[in-house]
């Protein structure tokens, strides 16, 4: 059917404007990533995109405790934490995150909440001696449009294929089917409970452990980098918020990981980094409680708890929560020297080829 070009243009503009208003309006109203507001009653919100949804949860949810950190925090159950500490917590993991990324999220939490009692956070070894402003650039396009207050770039959220097809439409479908509203539980959010943990998985790709000729200490540059990183991304926030208890722990990676370090000659360096970070946190603040579970050899050397050389299964997360609640594994100014001597003795002297037996 032929039509006048003017009519064609008018109709085209109306169609596109209708699309922009309708889709954009729906996204703003339902807001599956909580960019504008907290969840609405009667709708079911699926949590699944950590880097896209965490900032909205941080700013718009009601809570008094946070479980944050890298993938080492993904299998924590918020309900377990709440039962042990009497809190109402949210879990906000950022897999593979640098210290800066996690600290930025914590800062957003303190800017929008004034009654945060606890922060639980693993301090990954691999990110200790790292540039203080480092951000992961290798994990795909970062959704910065959800983190800044620039309304122009919100178009990337409003007209986003994944938001529309994987979040908005399922929400509408559930609503039309009369399913109850709510939100994915923070026990399940970002968890990987179904993953297989076994000795074979932990040792995958490794046939033997060599021993490096020399174990290198931290260089001067690495020490400076670590200090700057800790000060900016760990200590300063704790100093600004003395009312909050920061439960920071060094996650118990498996013996396979320690064996790899010994093979590379960086084992001494890692222990030194952990010790230096601990000293700084204990000296500079009173409200950071530091925990390390590397002395729990029944975990670290039992490879059936691991799905690779670093990631442990959810039962270890539960153990960590209970240990922290009991004060087990806590490093203080009094016991730190003894603790790190013991850690060095265990991991520097162990014959890692025994893991294959």
């Amino acid at each position, binding site marked *: *059917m*032929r*039509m*006048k*070009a*003017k009519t*064609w*243009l008018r*109709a*085209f503009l109306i*169609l*596109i404007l209708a*699309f*922009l208003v309708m*889709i954009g309006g729906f996204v703003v109203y339902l807001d599956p990533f909580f960019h504008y507001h907290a969840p609405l009653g009667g709708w079911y919100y699926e949590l699944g995109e950590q880097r896209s949804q965490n900032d909205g949860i941080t700013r718009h949810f009601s809570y008094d405790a946070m479980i944050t950190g890298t993938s080492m925090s993904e299998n924590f159950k918020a309900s377990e934490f709440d039962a042990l500490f009497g809190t109402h917590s949210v879990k906000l993991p950022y897999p593979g995150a640098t210290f800066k990324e996690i600290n930025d999220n914590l800062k957003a939490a303190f800017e929008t909440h004034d009654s945060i009692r606890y922060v639980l956070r693993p301090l990954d070894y691999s990110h200790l001696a790292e540039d203080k402003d480092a951000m992961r650039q290798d994990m*795909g*396009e970062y959704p910065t449009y959800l983190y800044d207050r620039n309304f*122009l*770039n919100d*178009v*990337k959220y409003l*007209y*986003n*294929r*994944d*938001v*529309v097809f994987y979040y908005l439409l399922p929400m509408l479908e559930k609503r039309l089917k009369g399913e109850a509203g709510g939100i994915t539980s923070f026990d399940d959010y970002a968890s990987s409970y179904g993953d297989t943990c076994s000795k074979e998985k932990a040792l995958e790709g490794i046939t033997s452990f060599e021993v490096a000729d020399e174990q290198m200490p931290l260089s001067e540059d690495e020490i400076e980098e670590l200090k700057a990183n800790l000060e900016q991304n760990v200590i300063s926030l704790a100093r600004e918020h003395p009312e909050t208890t920061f439960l920071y722990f060094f996650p118990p990676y498996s013996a396979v990981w320690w064996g790899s370090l010994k093979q590379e000659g960086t084992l001494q360096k890692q222990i030194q980094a952990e010790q230096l970070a601990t000293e700084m946190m204990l000296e500079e603040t009173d409200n950071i409680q530091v925990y390390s579970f590397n002395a729990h050899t029944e975990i670290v050397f039992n490879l059936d708890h691991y799905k690779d050389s670093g990631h442990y299964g959810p039962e270890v997360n539960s153990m960590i929560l209970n240990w922290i609640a009991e004060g087990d594994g806590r490093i203080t100014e009094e016991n730190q020297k003894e603790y790190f001597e013991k850690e060095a003795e265990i991991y520097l002297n162990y014959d890692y080829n025994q893991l294959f037996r």
Partner: protein
Amino acid sequence: MQFHSLYFIIFFLPLTLLGYYLPAGKQTGRGKAAADWFLIAASFLFYGIANPWYPAMLAVLILLNWGIAGREKAAEAAGASRRSERWMAFGIVLNVCFLGFFKYTNFFLENLNVIFHQDWPLVHVLLPLGISFIIFSQISFLVDVRRGKIPGVLFREYVLFSAFFPKLSQGPITTMRDFLPELRKDNRFSLNYEEMAAGIQMFTCGLFKKVILADPLGTAVTQYYSLFSYRSNVDSLIVMLAYTFQIYFDFSGYSDMAIGIAKMLGFDLPANFNSPYRAGTVTDFWRRWHLSLTSFLREYIYFPLGGSRRGKLRTYVNIMVVYLVSGLWHGASWTFVLWGVFHGLFQVLERMLGKLYRKVWLPIRWCITFYFVSMMWMLFQSSSFSEFQRFRWHLKVDRSGYYSQDLAACFRISGVNFVMQHLPGIYSDGTILAVSTALFLGACFVICLCFPNNQKRKYKVNLVSLLLTAAMLIISMLSMSGVSTFIYNDF
């Protein structure tokens, strides 16, 4: 800023059209000038959003070339033709040096290091977006001024020619000779609804090609190289097709968008593609691929060298020179140079065989051409010649016949899964993905070989085109989250 971004489609383009047509609508001299200056400002903003230094670089180029063109004209007016020619030569050398500094400094240093066994450090040079396109346009301007083919160009007209944002970053390479009549069209400033509707349709087709076709193909290519060592001959064949289609949909999609936007603003830019994969010879391929570049090289290099008028041997040499320059223009690497040389050699061979080759049955010639062009694209995108050789090894030697699932997943079509679940029999995920791949690549062949070319076809204004264009624009807009950059941006 890129055409395939939501910012461009939702904010930049509508505001630019509004700002351009509002003052121009008054149809007075002042209104027209205001519209042109607005378009110039919008173009600089478009360029500046990519990098704030780019507009400064462009401004320097514009002022330098305008100054040199002025000298050329003044010398010519004073009857000093040789002096005018020297100014033109100086201008060309200056532009080539400009391009050389930004694009080829490190290539030059790398080669010096190899030749003299040195370790001179490479330098960090910002490569301005579309510099190769801009420089070629400037060179054509200086040559055309010298030839007296563009008399009485106003400064405003020249600045708009140089900075016109639809063609700024990836062409089509336009000469002032072609652009001037567009600038001076009587009806340019009045909104032409037919042209606007055609422009919108063309832009949308280009956007769809880029976002819906080129980007998934690009993902497959990236995925292939992420596990290069493990790839089979089937993987390699599929990725060769994927890249062949990706580069076409990517670049021709961009050209469609550029020509479509220009049309919305009342300008007709030259077509850049004419269904190149239908070509039956490599010579024919170059009559259909990146037409504005071929035209530039013919006009400003091949003809001045004597073209085909100085005997066969000289013709072959001229062809080789043109494709050597073309290869080097595409990138600062020996792989690009070799790509150009091989294309030149194949065309020389076709000329040498002459009628004998043209007598070969067209489908066979088409297969030879398509295979050659596709293989050359793999050289084009390889970071080194050894990487290209590794690819050829995977394609020819590793005959495991295995099709990797991670690669196949890049071609996943949701509907295929649904349909196959309702067919008799049980199909594995691998089979479904293989069917998806065949459908995706099959569709690419059909679009390239059977559909009329976007830049050549007539755009109808009817209900079907309305609904189709709106649907394609909406689908493309929704698919832009996390899309890649254009391949031709670096050239």
